[in-house]
């Protein structure tokens, strides 16, 4: 190699080798100082075993062989690896192979400043990514915290009505969980799923405005009493209306419309079909299921198959038939909620633990 080319190689910290038939590498440019430490002094052949000197090359040599066999003149790079030199400094190295003038050539370069610049650039990018991840995680944590508070407030609100009627805390909680399972199966966003989980339990909140003589009457309601009872939908909606909180906006829809019927014979507005908000149609189904399969002071629990038979009869008249089919396909999940979220379990575990099990 001419002294001119040798100077260039020295200046860019590069050394060229050719590979001999026994797989050893013979330098064809001057040996740079940084390399001496790594290479065992050659025997009479004047060649070196680079794979032994640099174990990293063991993973590259297979690709290099293929490249040489294909007689490719374009360089194939090994990727960067780091060695520790005699001063215990990190030395970034990269090898490239090519086939030139009938020779299998390997170039070995100490990347020096170029590596430092690449490293610094990547470090900045990764620091930025870490900050971004941290901020996203913080936003998620705080959003969860807000959701949890919203849920707590909703449950507290609902508990006001349960002081006056027979519904239990576990019932209202189950309603939210069933509704969330339905919403998930319908492909709702995770935000909307969270919203219905909190909003659905508030469906009967308007009962707080119904007088005791009607609300706590044990016998059948007469027409006048039933008309009073029907008012709980509008009372609930009015209680929840007037905020910009998404969960309360959905809760208004549910409270107002959960007694509407698919065939338009429900109340308070006589809405039919898909004019009834889907959140309310979902809540109607899960509320009826839960009420039927649980015991109340005024009735025994209905066996589940009987309850489902009854509900299937209601599909298309009272209940949205499509949503009813979705509900039936989710029965195993609904059963888990029914069996896990009981009054006893509620007393034992906090709300968060229960949520993890069920949703």
């Amino acid at each position: 190699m001419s002294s001119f080319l040798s100077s260039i190689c020295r200046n860019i910290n590069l050394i060229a080798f050719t590979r001999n038939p026994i797989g050893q590498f013979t330098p064809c440019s001057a040996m740079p100082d940084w390399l001496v430490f790594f290479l065992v002094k050659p025997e009479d052949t004047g060649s070196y075993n680079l794979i032994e000197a640099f174990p990293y090359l063991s993973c590259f040599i297979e690709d290099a062989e293929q490249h040489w066999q294909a007689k490719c003149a374009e360089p194939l790079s090994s990727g960067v690896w780091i060695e520790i030199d005699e001063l215990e400094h990190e030395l970034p190295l990269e090898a490239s192979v090519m086939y030139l003038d009938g020779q299998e050539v390997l170039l070995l370069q100490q990347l020096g400043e170029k590596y430092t610049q690449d490293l610094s650039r990547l470090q900045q990018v990764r620091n930025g990514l870490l900050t971004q991840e941290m901020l996203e995680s913080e936003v998620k944590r705080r959003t969860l915290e807000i959701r949890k508070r919203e849920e707590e407030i909703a449950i507290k609100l609902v508990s006001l009505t349960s002081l006056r009627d027979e519904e239990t805390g576990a019932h209202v909680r189950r309603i939210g969980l069933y509704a969330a399972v339905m919403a998930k199966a319908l492909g709702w966003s995770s935000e909307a799923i969270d919203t219905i989980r909190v909003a659905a339990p508030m469906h009967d909140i308007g009962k707080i405005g119904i007088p005791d003589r009607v609300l706590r009457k044990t016998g059948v309601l007469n027409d006048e009493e039933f008309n009073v009872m029907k008012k709980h939908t509008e009372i609930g909606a009015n209680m929840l209306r007037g905020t910009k909180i998404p969960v309360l906006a959905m809760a208004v829809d549910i409270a107002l419309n959960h007694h509407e019927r698919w065939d338009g014979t429900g109340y308070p507005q006589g809405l039919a079909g898909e004019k009834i908000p889907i959140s309310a149609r979902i809540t109607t189904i899960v509320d009826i299921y839960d009420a039927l399969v649980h015991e109340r002071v005024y009735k025994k629990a209905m066996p589940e198959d009987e309850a489902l038979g009854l509900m299937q009869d209601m599909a298309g008249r009272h209940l949205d038939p499509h949503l009813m089919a979705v509900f039936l396909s989710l029965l195993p999940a609904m059963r888990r909620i029914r069996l896990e979220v009981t009054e006893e379990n509620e007393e034992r575990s906090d709300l968060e633990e229960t949520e993890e099990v069920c949703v």
Partner: protein
Amino acid sequence: MLQKKICLLGAFSVGKTSLIQRYVNKLFSDKYLTTVGVKIDKKQVTVGSTDLTLIVWDIAGEDDFTSIRSAHLRGLSGYIVVIDGTRKNSFDVALALHKRIKTELGDVAAVFALNKADLKAQWVINHEHIHALAQLSYPVIETSAKLDQGVEDLFMGLARQLVPENSEV
């Protein structure tokens, strides 16, 4: 002496280099210095009556700009997938890497490291995530390179899988 190549894999900044530094050199630095390329270290261990040299490959972490070269996995006997307990993203990357290696290399000895146990109050990796890892039937070890917690167990947990059973006493 028996030599086995092992790799530490995972998202960037999960602590792969720190775990190796702690294990091989008994050192730790709080400063995050990203790894570019590959660093190779050696550590001699004894499993039962077998002396073993672990050739530890520290491979640059995965991100949108860097992915692991298949060539780096050649001759791999086992790997440690490192997860930063404070970063959910590192859990997803770990599962993706594990899946990739299973596809490319088949069944290879592995251990999952749940790193940064010193920051446990800030962990977002919960029981559900850990349960999902345990389902993969590989050891899952909590580690902290900073506190030197679980580091020896981590590497020895992998080394034990690399030595034939009848060589252990």
